[in-house]
């Protein structure tokens, strides 16, 4: 204990802060300049967009299929799924491999930001913020008070995360 380096102490403090009761981890990402997050437990992997094979006659928000270690995986364009317009991929575009309802799916997002650990107090219910006219795929609004693990420039005040309910979004 006594021999802990400053770095370890900082790490411990951060963990102690963050590991407060019932915090849940979310992975934040950007779609059409809005900030979203999904439960980190459902995210298997983050990929740079692999070459996608389009599937004729598939629903419009299906970007196509890719092979992830031999497994054929469907990739959805989350922009289209969320009703934002299509946009060309950029250097920041990523594909999240998530556990969908009965398969692993790829979700194309504009950019991945960071992992958030949110306490229940940092999650507002959707209806109190946006009224009742919100899609059921929004599980809540996250307002992280602690800075994220990557110390970015946003102050906690302007961070608003739309927490997505994947089961309902992908259902």
């Amino acid at each position, binding site marked *: 204990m006594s021999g802990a380096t400053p770095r370890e102490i900082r790490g411990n403090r951060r963990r102690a802060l963050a590991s407060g009761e019932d915090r849940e981890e979310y992975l934040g990402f950007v779609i059409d300049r809005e900030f979203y997050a999904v439960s980190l437990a459902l995210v298997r992997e983050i990929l740079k967009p692999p070459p996608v094979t389009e599937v004729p006659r598939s629903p419009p928000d299906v970007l196509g299929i890719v*092979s992830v270690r031999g497994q*054929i995986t*469907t990739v959805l364009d989350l922009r289209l799924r969320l009703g934002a317009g299509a946009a060309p991929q950029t250097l920041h575009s990523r594909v999240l491999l998530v556990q969908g309802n009965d398969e692993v799916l790829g979700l194309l997002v504009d950019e991945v930001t960071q992992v958030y650990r949110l306490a229940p107090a940092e999650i507002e219910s959707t209806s109190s913020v946006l009224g009742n006219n919100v899609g059921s795929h929004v599980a809540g609004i996250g307002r992280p008070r602690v800075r994220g693990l990557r110390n970015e420039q946003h102050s906690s005040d302007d961070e608003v995360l739309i927490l997505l309910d994947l089961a309902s979004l992908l259902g």
Partner: protein
Amino acid sequence: MNSHGVRDEFFQEAQELIDTLAKDLLALEMATRGGSEEPELINDVFRSVHTLKGLSGLFSLDRLARLSHVLEDRLDDLRMGRLPVTPSTLDALFRAIELLGRMLASARRGGSDNDPELESLMVSLNPQAAAPAVVAVDELFELDIDPDIVRVLTEMEEHRLRTNVRNGTPMYRLRARLPIDRIDRAIDELKQRARPLGELIAYFPTGDLPADATLFELDILFASSSPFEQLQSRLESGDLSIHRIARRGHSQTVMPVASAPSVEEPSIPQKLARSEVPNVPAPLLTQRVEPMQLDSPFADQSPTGENRSLERTNGGKTPVPPKPEEERASSHSSRAVHSVRVDIRRLDHLMNVLSELAIVRGALSRMSERVRQRPELREFSGELHRLHRTFDRNLAEMQSGILEVRMVPLGQVFDRLARGVRQVARQHNKEIRLVVTGADTEVDKLIVEELSDPLLHIVRNSIDHGIETQPDRLAYGKPVEGTIALNAFQAGNHVIIEIEDDGAGIDPERVIATAVRRGLIGASEAEAYSTQDAINLLFLPGFSTRTEVTDLSGRGVGLDVVKTNIGRLGGVVDVQSERGIGTKFTITLPISLAILRALLIGVAGRTYALPLSSVAEATLLDPRALRTVEGREVVSLRGETLPICRLDRLFGHAEVNDGSRHASRHFVVVIALGGRRIGMVVSELFGQQDIVIKALGPSLAGVRGFAGATDLGDQRVGLVIDAAALLDELLSANERRGLEGGRVGRYTA
């Protein structure tokens, strides 16, 4: 002195064994909590106990030996998977180990190895008390079901049955009498009713003729943990009776111990009796609700006619002579050597690996070619070429080896079919001779499993609607006995199954009239219909789903389902019929679903794979040969008119115009399946490749026209075109519904 030393050694070794046992049990408990199974660990524990038993016997510590013996039996159950590893089982084992330690310590001090806890523990080690799920080596044969029934179960059914037996779910036999004219619906309704209560595992025609000839008698294997009374009140009716299927065997091995403890436990050869002579009955100690098995259809109708029923083999006593312990143990291992049951997914995995190797082979071939171009590398070139050849040959051998492992004879399905034929024939008071040829034709296991239902459908149709009544047959000068010929053979990469009857044949006019009445086709359209067109109408959904199926003299009961099921397997169904002579259904199936040779084609810059088995030829499209017939494009190819389909339009790809002089060059790939042909217009032919088809995810289940996808190498994925589905979609002149864009579905063969 010396004997003292030996005795000390014994106690030491015994103590060590007990310590090891305790340690291994703990590890087992940890593993079990973590949700993993540890067969090796159980095996270790088993062996330790076995040794302990031997040692105890050697030193006349009878009670120690007896406890070890019972313990060994339970551990054997655990290791053979007859008993689940549950917390309560583990508790009992821990108590037993503790007790062993106490008894050993007591004996070491010179006391008796008796312990007050011994008798109660012996009782709790009795499997009846330890766990409800007592399942034998081949647990299925422990159910009071005709082994022949078990043998004809599809793998899925068997698996479900096994799982339920393993979970200790009580099994029931539902005997249902359903109206034959709406049998499909009746079964559906029954499913609806039964599903909330349990699981329907398999259906079998009983072959018994109910007094009412409009009824069809089915036996259903049903697993349910609902109380029997509830099943009775929810399901039982005049047309459905419920019988509990007793579970025989197992408990007998330990009951004697519990009730009449003795050191020389009669070594009842339970395992041998069960696994080698599965139909030898054992005393039924499990509680049985009804003594149903004596008249059980599961017991008395093997397809071979052999009578394997319980009463014939003398219910009650076990007639097999006891065998010594060691022999019993060794026979387990020696039997295991000869065959292995493999999960088909493991084979799929091997196929995946093979397909990677196939990609390597391609690269090797290209490299070999490049090296050959370089004169200075001539020496290497020859060597590389030889290596490549060897690799190629071995790979091909390995591929066919794995495919062979997956192959099973069609006879499995045919046996089942024979029962159906017998029942339906008696139902209709028709005499049917079933002639089976080619039962040893082999197909992929997965295909066989899916074949059972469609074949039964077709055969039922043949008897129901094809074969005439006896007076009619006499009047036509046909033999009274109708014949259904079931013929299977291999043709190249396909297996053909023909179901031919010598009945009345299909009356195209009645079929057309019915289709018009049902609104499937317009009356004016109908006039242009050929006989073959009319026959194809039978496969339309909606042709037979109405309730008045029986007033059809033609066929049509659920043939659309048959077609869909066969189509899913990459096969096609064809019908030929001649009035008064008979009808022949021909099912063409690929031999294997696992790997296939495909033609890689380019469509508007995308690469698709087309199973070569469906490709008749591929040629350059001669624009001068293009014609339009009623607004549809056709091409004449060697004097034959072929409807064509431009894949880029069908798939909604914008035409890629790269400005090259070949921009307008196209190829026609002629797809031919079951006598129907269509030309697919593509822009590139890339050559052939062996591919492994992988399924598309559930989210793409609604997308039609693709059988799956395949790795093309370099991280690229190509879609595999489902030729049968596309052909169908494009050629069914009569399909009116569900086609997007109206661009497809207008071609006539």
